[in-house]
């Protein structure tokens, strides 16, 4: 059995080694990625103590079904992204190793301050990874907002630490009910706002368009699937298991996340470039998942995380590759692209349709599950708003797919000017990825239990979870 701490320690060790052995950095990256995928598949539940100090005093790692679920998705999408776009890694392998370690740490840690440390490492590596395409303005915005967000989160846990005297998550959740309401309001607002930056929730997501809208084939997949998965799952853990929201605060936070979903989808509707559409769609998905977490439908939220991670990995990788090889990602210019590259088109379409939640695809199953559970809670506004935003999402995705498959009136096969730059050799890896992920999404569409099993295990023993 693998000790879960190795999932953090091995990539970090390889990161330090890759500074010394500059020539072997890609080998080290691939080795760490492979090790982490293997580790995420075999680790078992448990409470891992670090340094030999028992939980409320020392730092511990919480390995339950929830974190195992997150680790599997996170490490698999990270590995797929790196292996497919190995050519784009260039000088960034050390940073990628550090970010892999920190994302695993965020998923595993059972300590609020330790979570801050990993959040900090993850966001600093994200700033560096976002400079891959040399769009420094987006990175600058991201740094400013990210620094503000980390500080707000830190301020929130400082207030809670001063009041309760503990940092351990399980200990905190048992002591949080004794805290004065006003102080809880202040601390939770700060923690929510701090996480909202990385989780792309509304007033704090100004950086997303410029960073996500300027990605290449590698960092697109890593941001939109690996980072999004880790951050939103940690958000879910904080606001479902540790701080259970009630009353006005819950209403305010829910309003923010629902508005994020709706505005994200509306903004995506008006975009012309594939990557900008996907960027706003990511904001919308983050809002949807956060809404599901806040209303207590943890199972639905987790399924949507899986759906979003795989779909966005594929779509962002392909969109980034289109940009890298053709120099543009405008839908108008790339019309008819998929007619020439049918395999890529197949994967992209499956991912998009599953994300929208069209019948026969996995997303449909997820949305039905979420909506029926929401209706059971006797709330009618939320399902109505979610359906409305999903409709917008469906329209723009299907419009995009129609244009990418259909070359236009003249009956040409495609606009050769751009599409011929994507040759068979340089699209091979993307085609393999498209087939693999596309078939996987179709597989889980017919066997939803494949993913649901772990989730229902988690939900059945949530009582002793933390």
């Amino acid at each position, binding site marked *: 059995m693998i*000790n879960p*701490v190795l999932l953090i*320690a091995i990539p*970090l*060790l390889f*990161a*330090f*080694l*890759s*500074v*010394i052995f500059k020539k072997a950095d890609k080998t080290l990256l691939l080795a760490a990625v492979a090790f982490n995928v293997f580790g995420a598949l075999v680790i078992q539940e448990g409470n*891992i*103590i*670090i*340094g*030999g*100090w*028992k939980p*409320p*005093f*020392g*730092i511990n790692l919480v390995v339950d079904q929830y974190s195992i679920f997150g680790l599997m998705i996170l490490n698999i999408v990270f590995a797929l992204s790196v292996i497919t776009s190995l050519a784009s890694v260039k*000088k*960034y392998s*050390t*940073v990628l190793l*550090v970010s892999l*370690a*920190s994302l695993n*740490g965020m998923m595993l840690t059972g300590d609020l*301050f*330790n979570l801050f*440390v*990993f959040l*900090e*490492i993850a966001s*600093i*590596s994200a*700033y*560096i990874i976002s*400079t891959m395409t040399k769009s420094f303005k987006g990175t600058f915005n991201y740094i400013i907002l990210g620094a503000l967000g980390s500080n707000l989160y830190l301020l929130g846990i400082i*207030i809670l630490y*001063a*009041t*309760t*005297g*503990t*940092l*351990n998550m399980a*200990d905190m959740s048992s002591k949080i009910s*004794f*805290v*004065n*309401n*006003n*102080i809880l*309001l*202040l601390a939770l607002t700060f923690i929510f706002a701090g996480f909202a930056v990385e989780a792309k929730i509304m007033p704090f997501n100004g950086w997303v368009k410029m960073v996500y809208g300027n990605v290449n084939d590698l960092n697109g997949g890593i941001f939109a699937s690996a980072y999004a998965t880790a951050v939103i799952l940690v958000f879910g853990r904080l606001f479902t298991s540790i701080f259970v929201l009630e009353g006005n605060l819950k209403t305010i936070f829910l309003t923010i996340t629902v508005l994020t979903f709706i505005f994200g989808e509306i903004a995506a509707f008006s975009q012309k470039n594939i990557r900008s559409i996907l960027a706003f769609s990511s904001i919308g998905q983050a809002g949807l998942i956060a809404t599901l977490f806040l209303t207590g439908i943890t199972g639905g939220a987790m399924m949507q995380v899986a759906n979003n991670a795989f779909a966005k990995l594929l779509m962002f990788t392909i969109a980034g590759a289109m940009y890298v090889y053709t120099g543009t990602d405008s839908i108008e210019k790339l019309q008819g692209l998929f007619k020439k590259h049918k395999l890529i088109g197949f994967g992209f379409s499956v991912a998009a349709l599953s994300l929208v939640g069209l019948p026969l695809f996995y997303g449909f199953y997820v949305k039905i599950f979420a909506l029926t559970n929401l209706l059971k809670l006797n709330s009618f506004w939320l399902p109505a708003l979610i359906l409305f935003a999903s409709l917008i999402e469906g329209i723009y995705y299907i419009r995009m797919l129609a244009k990418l498959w259909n070359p236009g009136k003249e009956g040409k096969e495609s606009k050769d000017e751009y599409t011929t730059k994507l040759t068979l050799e340089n699209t091979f890896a993307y085609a393999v990825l498209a087939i693999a992920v596309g078939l996987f999404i179709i597989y889980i569409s017919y066997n939803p239990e494949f993913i649901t099993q772990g989730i229902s295990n988690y939900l059945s023993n949530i009582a002793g979870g933390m």
Partner: protein
Amino acid sequence: MKKVIAALIVLVLGIFIFTNLYSTGEGKLFPKFGEVNLTERVSNSFVNKNVSENSGEIKFKKTKDAESGSANMVTSIVVNYRSFDTLGEVTVLFVSALGIGLLLSGNTRMKFKTPPNFILKTAVRIISGIILITGVYIFIHGHLTPGGGFPGGSMIASAVLLFYISDDEFKTKVKSFKVLEGTAGSLYLIFGLLGLSLGGYFLYNFLPTGTVGELFSAGIVPIIYIFVGLKVGSELSNLISDFLSEEGK
């Protein structure tokens, strides 16, 4: 107009923080300065070094085999009880320095507008040795006196900065600093993994903790602090050389 709105938002936020933080009412309140009840805090056990319930008075130079043998209680917390966080903080510095290296590094040394004068050059030659030795002293004695890896490392880097200021031609060997940085970081992790294989816990203090206050005490704490010091020193030196270099002309 923008500034007025910004000022208003800051004012509202300030009132929001102030009224909520110092509110009175039911439940646990934010403690006033100096009025904290230490006994209900987790950190109380760190200060008394009795996390594993082996309570007893700790006496300087007398107590043997204390739970965490370092005389400086901050070091106990930073490098022993919460060593995992320190590993993270070291990584924060590592990845920031790496990012600056990726974005700013150049091949040639930046020249100053006014060349450094003779007095500065001579003074730096005298002072820098002392600064280096003090830096090394601080991180070796991190478990006994205030200080430790981070301040000691910064001091080493300040000596490098003085070299840079006093000499237009001076350029550190970035590559050897990188090797030092990577080695120190790897050794920190390898010691953590040794703890995992010898004691069963990652970053476990597997060496005897000795007598409180002696130089050779506190198990792996001083060893780790030496790695942290070397790592911070080499990282900050690399930062300085990255900032003071230019793209090739």
